[in-house]
């Protein structure tokens, strides 16, 4: 039963990793950008929520009403004002610029909020759980995280393939030059993509902050989890990203079951094994 429990909890944690990964996957799909500051932005969103909650007294989940638009606006501005200048061509400038952003963000958070670890308090939902059978309890919060991940990925999928914004994303990703001739403005399309990515980041940050302690320096490992989920699932495949997150979560859960020290190691090893045998991921987009 312990093992079944480890797998079930792992699957649910996978939902959180899919939330870390979805925004990363989205901007890579639209503009081939890998944002090294992605993890730090997730943590940044958690601090924004912290600030909103202490100012308004809202429940962390309700604070999303403010945190999501704030992060989306930051994303739009960041892309329009800075990242658009380094996109296309050489891969070094965007890497260094987002790397620099990552360092700036970590130290900014340190300066403003100190190194103490924090947590968002969502009330009784945090500890309540659903008894499925003896020895297998499913917490409401992990369940809610997983449902949120499924909903977000389904809506991103819908947005990508059924709306005019998604059409613009795909057209710009296919052939930016022709898309511009058709009247699309690349700079704005990219800015909207980053806004969307950071809207997802906002949700990821709030769920992270309700489920665990956070501090200014935990961004890079969230980036790595998200990155691993994207690669395991296959580049450009959003449902694949969810599967990637679940595989990572289960691997970590099983590792922790063997020895608590192996939790993270087991996740990385699973990633490396998949990389060795399926370098394009488990579900690469067919084109």
């Amino acid at each position, binding site marked *: 039963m312990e093992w079944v429990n480890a797998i079930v909890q792992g699957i649910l944690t996978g939902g959180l990793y899919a939330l870390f990964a979805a925004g990363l996957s989205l901007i890579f799909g639209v503009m081939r950008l890998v944002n090294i500051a992605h993890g730090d932005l997730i943590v940044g969103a958690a601090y924004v929520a912290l600030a909103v909650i202490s100012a308004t007294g809202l429940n962390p989940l309700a604070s999303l009403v403010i945190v999501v638009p704030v992060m989306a606006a930051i994303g739009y501005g960041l892309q329009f004002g800075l990242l658009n200048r380094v996109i296309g061509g050489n891969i070094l400038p965007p890497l260094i610029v987002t790397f620099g952003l990552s360092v700036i963000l970590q130290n900014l958070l340190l300066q403003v909020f100190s190194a103490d670890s924090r947590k968002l308090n969502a009330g009784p939902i945090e500890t309540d759980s659903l008894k499925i059978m003896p020895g297998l309890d499913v917490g409401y919060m992990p369940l809610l995280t997983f449902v949120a991940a499924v909903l977000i990925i389904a809506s991103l999928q819908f947005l990508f393939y059924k709306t005019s914004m998604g*059409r613009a994303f795909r057209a710009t990703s296919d052939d930016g030059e022709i898309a511009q*001739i058709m*009247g699309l403005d690349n700079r704005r399309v990219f800015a909207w993509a980053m806004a969307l990515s950071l809207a997802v980041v906002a949700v990821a940050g709030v769920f992270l902050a309700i489920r665990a302690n956070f501090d200014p320096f935990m961004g890079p490992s969230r980036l790595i989890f998200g990155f691993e989920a994207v690669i395991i699932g296959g580049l450009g495949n959003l449902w694949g990203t969810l599967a990637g997150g679940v595989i990572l979560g289960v691997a970590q859960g099983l590792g922790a079951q063997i020895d608590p020290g192996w939790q993270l190691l087991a996740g990385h090893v699973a990633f490396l094994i998949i990389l060795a045998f399926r370098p394009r991921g488990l579900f690469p987009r067919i084109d």
Partner: protein
Amino acid sequence: MPPKNGDIRFKGHSILGARPSRVTELGIAMVPEGRRLFRSLTVEENLVLGGYVKRPGPWTLAKVYEVFPVLKERRHQPATSLSGGQQQMVAIGRALMSNPEVLLLDELSLGLAPVVIKDIYALLPKILGEGLATILVEQDVTRALSVSDHFACMLEGKFSLKGRSDAFSHEEISAAYFGT
């Protein structure tokens, strides 16, 4: 490549170095060489995107489907799954959707089978009937002359011959074309 001097003007606006979308807004549309359809978009999505710049005029999705009925049948297929000729139709339809005043057709016959080229050219008069000025860049001289009113030959960046399409013999044109 930016030009050293000179200007390109259209309806009183300088369009040299203007954003590509601005040129389309002013009423110039292009069918690019090699078609360059959006590969992750369906036929219909490609056409709709062509109408992103909303200019008033006769061309609508329905009108494009009327001229190219085969596209209506395949509208939900990925654009790049179509045959070369049908892809060229999508490219033309996509350009028309912006209701241009000037249509630029670049290497219309490139990479297409002769039968398909014939079909496309047979459709051109029907498309151009509505007072649409068209600039066709084409290696297939005979076909280009058959649909055009005026022509110009260029050799190493300079005009070598220009005039009415019916005013010169084939030999005179090919001499200008090859620079012999």
